[in-house]
């Protein structure tokens, strides 16, 4: 389950899908039509058409301020809808928000549990609010504590947990009523890499059990682990497809080069034929080209003739990161 490469996880997920075949095609569990939310004149979410099928692990990506949080808050019934409409599990977003709230688990971006309460008390508080029967409470809290790796910390006050543990506790609290839909707003932002990996292992497990998950994230490796990805830019949904298809949007190949003089290399690369785009990636320069093998040779020759030193130059696989930056640049240029 915990694969190191995103693509493999997605492939495995589609094979192991637990939804019976005879139920496909299923009606969407979340559907919005020209859903819009305005703050004064600013359209934070602009004519959003979103269709999410049951059991999807849907990643919402986009730069800061693209409207990811507003979208999730709209879906959670926390904001008034300005224009358009939407349904979640068959209930209308504007007219039946309370019915929707029974069926979703919402996790806000900031830590929003009670710091003075212990881990267990937080879980039990939400169990009561969601009308979980006392018998089920005992079983579920134990299971969720184990699931989130918090059993030994159950009596610790939530305020005294590490950032990663707080996120896992928040997730456990949203799961206490076993909702079919999860709305998670950047659940792994500010979390260390190990906790981030653990958190995604939990999400993948939930996904495999059929829970529909909408998760916003700034991390492209996380987007790679989703079954569907929606890219938002300035309130609009720019593209919505599987990670493989989004990567495929980028025609051509990626050349990775480690130059000694980064600035000169960057300038030179953009003048070369067939180089569409240059992105920086740490010490490396990522060049999007039309034909990898041919351009690699030309680039190496050009660098040699200009006497620009470099460590390595190779053709690398295109990841979500490059596809994402390329798409955002195209949007910005419009």
């Amino acid at each position, binding site marked *: 389950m915990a694969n190191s490469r995103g693509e493999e996880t997605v492939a495995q997920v589609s094979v192991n899908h637990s939804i019976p075949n005879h139920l496909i095609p299923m009606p969407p569990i979340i559907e919005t039509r020209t859903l819009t939310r305005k703050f004064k004149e600013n359209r934070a979410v602009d004519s959003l058409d979103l269709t999410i099928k049951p059991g999807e692990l849907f990643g919402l990506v986009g730069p800061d301020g693209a409207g990811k949080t507003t979208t999730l808050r709209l879906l959670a019934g*926390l904001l008034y809808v300005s224009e358009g409409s939407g349904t979640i599990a068959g209930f209308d977003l504007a007219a039946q928000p309370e019915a929707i709230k029974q069926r979703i688990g919402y996790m806000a971006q900031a830590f929003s549990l009670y710091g*003075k309460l212990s881990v267990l008390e937080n879980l039990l508080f939400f169990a009561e*609010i969601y009308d979980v029967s006392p018998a089920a409470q005992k079983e579920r809290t134990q299971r969720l504590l184990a699931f989130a790796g918090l059993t030994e910390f159950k009596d610790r006050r939530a305020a005294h947990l590490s950032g990663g543990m707080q996120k896992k506790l928040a997730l456990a609290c949203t799961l206490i009523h076993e909702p079919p839909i999860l709305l998670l707003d950047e659940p792994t932002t500010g979390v260390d890499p190990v906790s981030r990996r653990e958190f995604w292992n939990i999400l993948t497990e939930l996904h495999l059990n059929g829970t529909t998950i909408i998760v916003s994230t700034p991390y492209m490796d996380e987007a790679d682990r989703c079954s569907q990805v929606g890219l938002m830019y300035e309130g609009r949904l720019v593209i919505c497809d599987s990670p493989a298809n989004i990567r495929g949007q980028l025609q051509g190949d990626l050349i990775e080069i480690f130059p000694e003089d980064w600035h000169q290399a960057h300038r030179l690369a953009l003048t070369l034929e067939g180089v569409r785009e240059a992105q920086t990636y740490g010490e490396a320069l990522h060049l999007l080209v039309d034909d990898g093998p041919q351009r690699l040779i030309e680039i190496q020759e050009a660098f040699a003739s200009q006497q620009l030193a470099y460590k390595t130059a190779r053709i690398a696989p295109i990841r979500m990161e490059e596809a994402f930056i390329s798409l955002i640049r195209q949007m910005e240029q419009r």
Partner: protein
Amino acid sequence: MNLRHIWAVTRKEFHHILRERSTLILVLITPTALLLLMAYALTVDIQNVPIAVLDLDRSSLSRSFVQQITAGEDLQLYAQVNTLDEIEGLLMHGDIKAALILSPAFASDLLSLRGLPLQIIIDGTEPESGAFAVDHIAWRAEEFINTAISDQIQARGFSIESLQPIDLRIRTWFNPSLKPRNDLIPGLISMVLGMPALSVALTLAHEREHGTLEQLMATPIKRSELLVGKMLPYIIVGLVNVIVIPILAVLWFKIPFNGSFALFFVLSALFLFAILSMGIIVGVFMPTQAAALALSFLVIFFPGFFLTGIFFPIASMPEMMRMEALGLPGTHYAVITRGIFLPGVGLNILWPYAVMLVGLGFAFTGVAALFFKKKLG
């Protein structure tokens, strides 16, 4: 409303009160501390008012008069002086609030029943202390006449009543010798018991600030369940004060408690409901704790101090303010506390005030529930 939901919120809130020392102090200690502070602040200034005496007569009668004037705790003889200039100096420095000048003919005028030749100079920058000094000098002078020279008066065939040399009017709440605290403290109690309203306003704003309200809004909890669940613990904590504060009043301040404690307890619960509903309204409208704190003082505590008739009679207020006073729970509760403490009246007299408290409580809660939306915007 689902009782399980309300209790879940109440229990959580209790954890917060008990585990957060500042909240615990705010709700449990503040009312007691405030009562002690204000009861002393509002009576201590008008005890031991320093005065100077310029005795131009220097007779044995004038000396015993001065002794009588300064015998109590109300007036304190700061200095015996010999010239008017000295008095001016002492007044300028603020060492004394009033000066008493006995004319050279003090003894002879008094004994010949020509009057009481006294001059009192008061510091006009502190009229309360000055007026207090005048009242008390007059009161003690009368006492002096009644005791020291009544024999001479009667020997001449007059009755003391016919000779009242001074028209005596003393404002009760500025007169320790008439036990002003008996009236003041029950009024103050009505004010300090409303303190949990501040906590309730802050707790809602606190949840808003910390994002926990956003999480709660994403759950199916009903608005009324949340608001009632939040008020309940502060009503319970407030009722602890309802027990502690009268004990303090009776044992420490020696205020007589003549009415029924059970009635006091029940009516206090109604008052807490009404005043906490005001706190809830503040919490519903204010985005931050700082704003909630400021608004609480503006709409709950300052009006509660000045408009509820504790210090200034409501009857003497302008029409508009009288209407506002009727909308304040403290106005009605002040009548209840005074009524139960001093005359010890019962529900047969206090019921209209109880009805007003219930009415205000439901009105305020209704407004809060109406404007509290499970939306961020």
